[in-house]
């Protein structure tokens, strides 16, 4: 078995991607109805997403604010923004492990583009993200934070996160379909990642060692380029550079992997 994709593999992988965007209705609809289905028949529906985030931020904010000797008026807005962005990244990462497994009914019957199911995961988590975003203005009003126009920089940052998670889901989805232990490993690693990424704590608290986190923890860089603008800071150039380096690496791994094993996914379901 060769690991090298053939010319035909490359061509079919690109065709898959093109067909995915030509038929965007499918994944847009699937992603949205995934969320609707989860909260169907509950009174508050999908706003439970917002409530859970609000409750988490309030609870953790008070305790950890005290623990880290932070001023709650600055800590809670910091935590709310970070958690909102983090839940988008980690949500896609953990849902992504099931990309093809949960789509097995569809994939076994029709020649639908595989990348459409990656987009479905992205849409599903973007809908949740939109619900979580609601708490940001509420927190800002409560704690008298004035938003700054720098926040607009979060939009290109979000776009970069989506490209990154698209590429990683493309690869993770395939690997998790073939090796069924991997979803468990990923969910464990994501738990760890939450604690080694400056979501609840400030990078300055680590002193000089913080630099290692910023260099070697990809999640930290992806988090910064969205959450810092939302708090009115312009991210350092180094954050963008490291995000672009990670994107290039992800592309170099994911795309050949997808090209080579795209046709095998159905066989592994």
């Amino acid at each position, binding site marked *: 078995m060769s690991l090298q994709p053939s010319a035909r593999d490359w061509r079919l992988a690109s065709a898959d991607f093109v067909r995915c965007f030509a038929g965007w209705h499918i994944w847009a609809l699937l992603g949205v*109805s995934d969320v*609707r289905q989860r909260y169907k028949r509950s009174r508050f529906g999908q706003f439970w997403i917002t409530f859970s985030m609000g409750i988490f931020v309030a609870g953790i904010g008070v305790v950890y604010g005290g623990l880290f000797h932070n001023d709650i008026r600055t800590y809670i807005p910091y935590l709310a923004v970070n958690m909102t962005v983090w839940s988008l990244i980690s949500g896609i990462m953990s849902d992504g492990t099931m990309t093809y497994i949960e789509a097995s009914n569809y994939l076994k*019957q029709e*020649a639908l583009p595989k990348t459409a199911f990656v987009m479905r995961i992205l849409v599903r988590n973007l809908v949740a993200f939109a619900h979580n975003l609601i708490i940001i203005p509420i927190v800002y009003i409560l704690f008298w934070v004035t938003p700054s126009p720098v926040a607009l920089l979060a939009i290109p940052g979000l776009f970069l996160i989506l490209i990154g998670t698209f590429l990683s889901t493309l690869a993770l989805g395939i690997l998790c379909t073939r090796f069924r232990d991997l979803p468990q490993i990923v969910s464990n690693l994501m738990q760890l990642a939450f604690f080694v990424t400056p979501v609840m704590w400030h990078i300055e608290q680590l002193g000089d060692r913080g630099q290692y986190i910023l260099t070697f923890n990809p999640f930290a860089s992806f988090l910064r380029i969205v959450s810092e603008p939302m708090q009115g800071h312009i991210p350092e150039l180094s954050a963008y550079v490291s995000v672009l380096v990670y994107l290039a690496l992800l592309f170099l791994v994911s795309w050949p992997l997808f090209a080579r094993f795209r046709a095998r996914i*159905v066989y592994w379901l």
Partner: protein
Amino acid sequence: MASIELVDASVDIPIYNSRGRSLKTTLLRRVGGQVEADGRDNVKVRALRQINLSLRPGDRLALIGHNGAGKSTLLRVFSGSYEPSSGSAEIRGTVSSLIDMMMGMDPELTGADNIILRGVFVGMSLKQARLAIPEIADFSELGPYLHLPMRTYSSGMLMRLAFAISTTRFPDILLFDEMISFGDAAFSNKARSRVEAMLGKASILALASHDLGALKTYCNRAIMLQQGMIVSEGKVEEVWDRYVNVQRESA
């Protein structure tokens, strides 16, 4: 122009979660494709072996064979979902596979929502799907149930709705796994004329069935599959006779 071209197409499905040894005994059973174990304890099901087949417009192919002979797998190769593990399959034209008509339907959503969801899968845009609701509602005769969650439907109602949605689009290539039958006589007639209209428009049909009547009515050529190989090819009646003979011999 629609066409299906299979050259030496094989489908070997690896089974990673079972041990080779315990499955070796299954090599002795009668039904199913061939199960093989390679040196590294990996078991694979040889669902299709070196199939050569060429379907052109006007071809109505009957797939005959016992359970597990590879009929459904072959239909899935025709639909494009299984790309052969060796050999090649070129499929040209829009395909509608009615193997599972309920694919993509969600019991928590209302009938109308499901029309949109399922409609998009059969190739409609969101707008087209929305416009198709009245027509589908009319055909399936669901009345007020259309705006209730699908989980409240009886199985007959589910079938009606799934059938009505799956058959609104007329594809170039039509795939059936057993002809659909409805208990309700009036609806059954309606469904039959809808299928006939689809067949009239479709340029290629493949039908897997154990019902000689249906095969004779709809098909003009036949293949018989055994352990994933084409063992007989020709007119529907001839191939069917061979199938009956083979069954008698093994009984």
